[in-house]
C-alpha cells in the first residue's frame, strides 16, 4: 500500500532496533528500582547436566510475560514444559504498561488473574489536549454487566512477578534461569537446543519449541529468520517518575504542549505512585544527547510543570524508542513457533505489543495442548500462524494510523494533524481523529478454522463467528465465561429437549472429554437439563448473544466463537468441532 511505504523506511530487520535498553540515574545499578525488588533466581543444575537423557514435550525460550503465559496455558491443558531464560531475574524497567480487557480474561483462564486485579489500576477514559484546550475525551465502552474494565495499567515487572508466582505453584513447569540457548539443531520430530548455563553447557531435546525470546530473539537468528516491515522515524523518550500526583487513571495526550513545542507528550499512571511520561523528540534533536540524565530531568520537569505537578519527583527509569511494524513471514518454522515480540514488533501507541503477545501464547497453547493430548490432528498447528499473523497485520493497519498521527512523517501529515486538532477545539466531528485506536481483540472469521459462515450471517445481532466471546453477568452474580474452562464450550439457549442436548454433548465429548456445556434458561423454564444451567431471568445474556430458543454457540478453548447456529443442528455442531481439532478441513 503506497500510504504505508511512502513515509516509512522499509527495512530488513536483523536484530538491532536502534532502541537502547533502559537507563537509570547515575549511581544506580540496572536493577536498582525505587519501588521494586528484583529477585535473583539461582541456576539449578539441569538433569541433562547430571547425565540424564530427557525428551521434553515443549521447550519455551524466554521467560518474559508471553513465554510464561504460554507455559501456564499449556499446564492448564495438562502439558508439561521447560522454560528457559538467559537472565537471572525479570526484565528491567516497566516497559509494557497496559493490559487490555481481553488479556485479563486470558489471565483468568491461566489461573493467575487475582494479583493483577489487586495491583493494577483499571481505567476507561482518556483526554487529549491541543495547545492547552481539551479537544477529545476517550471513553471506552464499559457496562457493569462486563467483568473487566477496558484497560489496566501495571508495570511489566509486576506482570512477570505475578505470572512467575503462578508458575512456581505449577508442577508441570520447570523454569531454568541463567540458561541461554546458543545453538539449535533440527532432529527427527523435534529440536536439540545447545544450552549455556553456569554449570556448563548441555543439550536439551524437545518435541516442540516455542520462541518467546523477545524483539532481539536469538532463536530467530539461529534459524536465519528475518523480521520485515517498516520503521517510522519519530522517536519517543519514555521515562518513569515517582511522585504524589492527584489525577485519575486516564490516558492523557498533549499535542503541541508548551513543554514540548512541535512534539507530543503522553502521561499514564501506574501503581506505586509511578507515572509514565512519553515525549516525542523533535527531528533535529540528537538521540544520544536526549537520553543524558540531565536532559531527561530537564525535559521531564517541563512536562510535569505543564500537567500542574508542583511537589518533588524522583526519576526511576528511562528509555527511547522508534515505532516499528515488523513481523516474520511465517510464525512457524518446522517444530518452532514464534510468539510475542519474537514474531512481531508493533508501535507502542495503542497498547498492542504485550496484549498481542498474550493472545499469541493463548492461541498456540490450546492448539499444541490438544495435539499433544492426542485430541487434535497435528495439522491444527498449521492454523496458528495464519490466525495470529493476520491479527498482527490488522494491528499494523491500526497502529500505522495512530503512529502517523502521533509522529506525522511529513509536512502534509503534520499540517493535516494540526488542522484536525485546531478544528477539534470547536468541532465535534473531527475529534475521533485524535482517538488512540486502542487494541481490540481480533476476529478469526477469515482464518483457516472458520466454518458455517452462512449460519453466522443468519443472526441479526450478537457476536460474530471468529470474534472473542463477550462476557455477561449471570443471575448468581458470576459471569458467563467463568463457567468456561480451558476446553471447548457449548453454549445453548433454552434447549428444551434435554434428551437431544445430552446426546449432542455425548457426541462432542467423544472428541473433547472436558467440553463444557452451559445451558442458558430464560423465563421460568423448568426442565431437567444436561449441562450447567444459567438462569437468565432478565434476558440479558440472550440479548448479548442475539439468541432465540434453540440457539447454539460453540466456543474454542481461547473463548473465540468457532461457529453459531440459530437453531439446534447437531451434525453441523460436531463438524465444526472436528474442524477446530484439525480432523477435517473447513468446508
Amino acid at each position, binding site marked *: 500500500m503506497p500510504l504505508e511505504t511512502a513515509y516509512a523506511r522499509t527495512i530488513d530487520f536483523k536484530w538491532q532496533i536502534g532502541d537502547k535498553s533502559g537507563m537509570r540515574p547515575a549511581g544506580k545499578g540496572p536493577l536498582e528500582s525505587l519501588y521494586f525488588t528484583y529477585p535473583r533466581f539461582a541456576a539449578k543444575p539441569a538433569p541433562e547436566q547430571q547425565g540424564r537423557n530427557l525428551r521434553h514435550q515443549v521447550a519455551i525460550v524466554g521467560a518474559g510475560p508471553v513465554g510464561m503465559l504460554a507455559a501456564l496455558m499449556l499446564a492448564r491443558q495438562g502439558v508439561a514444559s521447560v522454560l528457559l531464560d538467559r537472565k537471572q531475574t525479570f526484565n528491567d524497567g516497566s516497559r509494557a504498561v497496559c493490559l487490555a480487557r481481553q488479556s485479563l480474561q486470558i489471565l483468568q483462564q491461566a489461573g493467575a488473574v487475582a494479583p493483577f486485579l489487586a495491583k493494577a489500576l483499571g481505567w476507561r477514559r482518556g483526554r487529549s489536549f491541543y495547545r492547552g484546550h481539551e479537544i477529545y475525551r476517550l471513553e471506552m465502552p464499559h457496562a457493569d454487566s462486563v467483568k473487566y474494565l477496558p484497560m489496566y495499567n501495571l508495570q511489566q515487572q509486576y506482570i512477570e512477578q505475578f505470572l512467575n508466582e503462578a508458575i512456581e505453584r505449577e508442577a508441570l513447569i520447570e523454569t531454568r534461569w541463567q540458561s541461554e540457548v546458543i545453538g539449535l539443531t533440527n532432529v527427527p520430530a523435534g529440536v536439540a537446543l545447545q544450552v549455556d548455563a553456569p554449570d556448563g553447557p548441555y543439550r536439551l531435546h524437545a518435541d516442540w519449541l516455542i520462541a518467546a525470546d523477545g524483539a532481539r530473539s536469538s532463536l530467530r537468528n539461529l534459524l536465519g529468520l528475518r523480521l520485515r516491515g517498516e520503521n517510522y522515524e519519530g522517536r519517543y523518550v519514555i521515562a518513569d517518575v515517582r511522585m504524589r500526583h492527584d489525577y485519575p487513571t486516564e490516558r492523557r495526550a498533549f499535542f503541541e504542549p508548551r513543554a514540548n513545542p512541535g512534539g507530543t507528550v503522553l502521561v499514564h499512571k501506574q501503581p506505586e505512585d509511578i507515572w509514565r511520561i512519553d515525549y516525542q523528540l523533535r527531528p533535529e534533536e540528537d538521540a544520544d544527547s536526549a537520553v543524558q540524565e540531565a536532559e531527561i530531568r530537564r525535559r521531564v520537569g517541563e512536562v510535569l510543570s505543564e500537567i500542574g505537578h508542583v511537589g518533588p519527583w524522583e526519576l526511576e527509569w528511562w528509555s527511547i524508542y522508534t515505532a516499528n511494524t515488523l513481523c516474520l513471514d511465517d510464525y512457524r518454522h518446522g517444530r518452532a513457533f514464534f510468539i510475542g515480540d519474537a514474531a512481531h514488533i508493533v508501535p507502542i501507541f495503542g497498547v498492542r505489543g504485550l496484549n498481542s503477545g498474550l493472545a499469541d501464547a493463548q492461541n498456540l497453547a490450546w492448539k499444541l495442548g490438544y495435539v499433544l493430548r492426542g485430541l487434535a490432528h497435528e495439522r491444527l498447528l498449521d492454523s496458528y500462524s495464519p490466525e495470529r499473523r493476520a491479527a498482527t497485520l490488522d494491528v499494523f493497519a491500526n497502529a500505522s494510523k495512530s503512529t502517523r498521527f502521533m509522529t506525522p512523517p511529513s509536512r502534509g501529515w503534520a*499540517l*493535516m494533524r*494540526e*488542522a*484536525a486538532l*485546531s*478544528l477539534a477545539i470547536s*468541532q465535534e*466531528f*473531527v475529534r475521533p481523529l485524535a482517538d488512540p485506536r486502542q487494541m481490540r481483540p481480533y476476529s478469526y472469521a477469515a482464518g483457516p478454522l472458520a466454518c458455517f459462515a452462512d449460519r453466522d450471517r443468519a443472526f441479526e445481532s450478537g457476536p460474530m463467528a471468529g470474534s472473542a466471546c463477550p462476557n455477561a453477568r449471570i443471575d448468581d452474580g458470576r459471569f458467563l465465561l467463568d463457567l468456561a474452562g480451558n476446553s471447548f464450550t457449548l453454549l445453548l439457549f433454552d434447549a428444551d429437549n434435554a434428551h437431544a442436548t445430552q446426546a449432542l454433548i455425548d457426541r462432542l465429548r467423544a472428541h473433547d472429554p472436558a467440553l463444557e456445556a452451559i445451558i442458558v434458561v430464560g423465563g421460568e423454564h423448568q426442565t431437567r437439563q444436561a449441562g450447567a444451567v444459567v438462569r437468565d431471568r432478565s434476558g440479558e445474556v440472550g440479548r448479548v448473544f442475539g439468541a432465540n430458543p434453540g440457539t447454539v454457540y460453540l466456543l474454542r478453548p481461547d473463548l473465540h466463537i468457532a461457529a453459531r447456529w440459530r437453531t439446534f443442528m447437531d451434525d453441523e455442531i460436531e463438524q465444526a468441532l472436528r474442524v477446530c481439532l484439525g480432523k477435517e478441513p473447513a468446508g
Partner: protein
Amino acid sequence: MTMSFEQLETVYEMMAQAIDKAGPARESLFLAKLVLLLSHHVGDDEVVHDAIATALRDLPD
C-alpha cells in the same frame, strides 16, 4: 447543486480576505481546516475525492 456566479464571487472575495487575515505562517493551516469542515458539510466522499484530485492538477512548477 451549484451556487450562482454572484455567490461564488462572494466566496472568492471572502477567501482572499481570510487568507490575508490568517497570514503567511498560518494560511496553509487555515486552508486545511477549511477543507475538513467543507468535506464534513458536503457529506459525499466522492465529490471531495474528485475535488482534491482536480485542485492538485495544473499546479505551476
